[in-house]
């Protein structure tokens, strides 16, 4: 196995890319893809630690994260579709009926 640090650094870079994408992108669908990237970075961290520690609960965690992420995306796409029916558009800058 490659050293643990390689996995952790790669995961940290992916996670940072995901956060940057969530903050920077204006399209709701791309924001969703960036959130998936964050979750996959977490999965990679868990897998790295799990292999390093020789402990299986990290791998179980990864399966459940994937299942929950699928549920989250199903709900998310449904809400995006219903926004699209109102606006014909999924740009988050134009989703601004409410402001303080």
């Amino acid at each position, binding site marked *: 196995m490659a050293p643990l640090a390689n996995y952790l650094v790669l995961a940290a870079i992916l996670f940072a890319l995901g956060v940057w994408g969530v903050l920077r992108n204006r399209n709701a669908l791309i*924001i969703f893809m960036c*959130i998936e990237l964050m979750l996959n970075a977490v999965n990679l*961290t868990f897998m790295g630690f799990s292999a390093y520690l020789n402990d299986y609960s990290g791998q179980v965690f990864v399966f459940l994260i994937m299942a929950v992420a699928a549920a989250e995306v199903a709900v*998310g796409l449904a*809400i995006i579709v*219903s*926004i699209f029916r109102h606006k014909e558009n999924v740009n988050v800058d134009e989703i601004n009926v*409410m402001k303080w």
Partner: protein
Amino acid sequence: MDYSLLIPEVVLFVWALVLLLYNASAKTENPRAIGLFALIGLVAAFVILWFVPDGSLFGKTFISDTYARGFKMIFLLAAIVTVIGSVDFASKHMKHTGEFYSLIMLCVTGMMFLASAGELISLYVALELSTISLYILAAFLKKDLKSTEAGLKYLILGAASSGILLYGLSLLYGLTGSTVLDEIGYRLFLNEGTTIAAVFAIVMFVAGFGFKLAAAPFHMWAPDVYEGAPTPVTAFLSVASKAAGLVAFVRLFFNSLLAIKPEWVVIVEIVAILAMVVGNVVALLQKNIKRMLAYSSIAQVGYVLVALSAGIDLSVTSMMIFLLAYLFANIGAFIVVIAFSNATGSDNIEDYSGLWKRKPSLAIVMTIYMLSLVGIPLTGGFIAKYFLFGAAVKEGLYTLVVIAILTSVISLFYYMNVVRIMMFRPAPSADKIALPWMIKLGLAISVIMVLLIGIWPGPFYAWGQLASTIFHF
């Protein structure tokens, strides 16, 4: 293995599925009957909960102790009062009411599992069960642009924040090599001295849970979601989602991370100060009552964090009393908002003028809820604040308590502004407001409980103290 520990959760889950199937098969729906059916399930689970013993299942994945059961009571009570107050709203504005109630019940099931979670995996899955149900509930009125927008905002920020929380969990797993909370606490205790990774994980936890609690600076979603979501959902969200964040936050921090308390106490204190200042100051500017209550809830969570940064058993006791008092005062206030907007179609604070002339009882109960949220003696809010700040004083956190009291004084202005407008402004029209009996019942329960906690706090204190006994400070 004593599977009887799971009975309240199983009852709720099965009840939610039955409602869902009934809704899918029924030709015409009767919202009142469906609401009553949901109410029976919630009350049944609440009654069964009193008989559940202590114990744990599946290698401490599911723990039933006084702390978990205390929080389960809070979740169920929040759902019961919300459902009582929502029946009229649902029959007026909603289609598919069966789905609505079944989502509320699934959300409560998730929160109850969260209260019992003694392990990171079950903690995460239970948290997501409750929040994903809440995303759908926030966007439930799909013909209404505001509600859909609230759902999307909640979903994007919620999913991103649970990603951040998960990254923290993965670091904690890597540091300790275990996902069981007790085991993590034990191994952190053995590892003398903390690493930079532990501090990093703590920052992630505070950000992730700060979102669920709507504590500043992670509160951006709260005003929009509170305003846009259907009012019964806002009522439930404002109390239950906060309690759900707190139950996991406290178990994780006081059970597993107590060994490294000096590292996290400063971060929690900063978040507490920000939440109190931002919540109370911005609430002064609000014109919509749901937005005003959103900022007030941000401020209220700041008071809880003041007590939690003390990190003693009184912190947990006072948090339980606070949540109970806040539950009835806040959901009660939202039931008034539901009744008012059903009658007049408005959520603006200005439109409440002359409510005293149009429906004196509604104006009086709203005044009692506002007084409780400020923390005036003889109401539950006073007892809650007394113990919350008492916990902080006991540990010598005087700066925090001074800020908390000063910001409480600011909060007096916007809460009393509502009372002033209701009582002393002339009414725009002489139309009386009629109250359906379910709304009257919800209002009566909340007022009685708010006053009961304020006048006779003994049993509630004992109940809170029982919950704090599971932590070893």
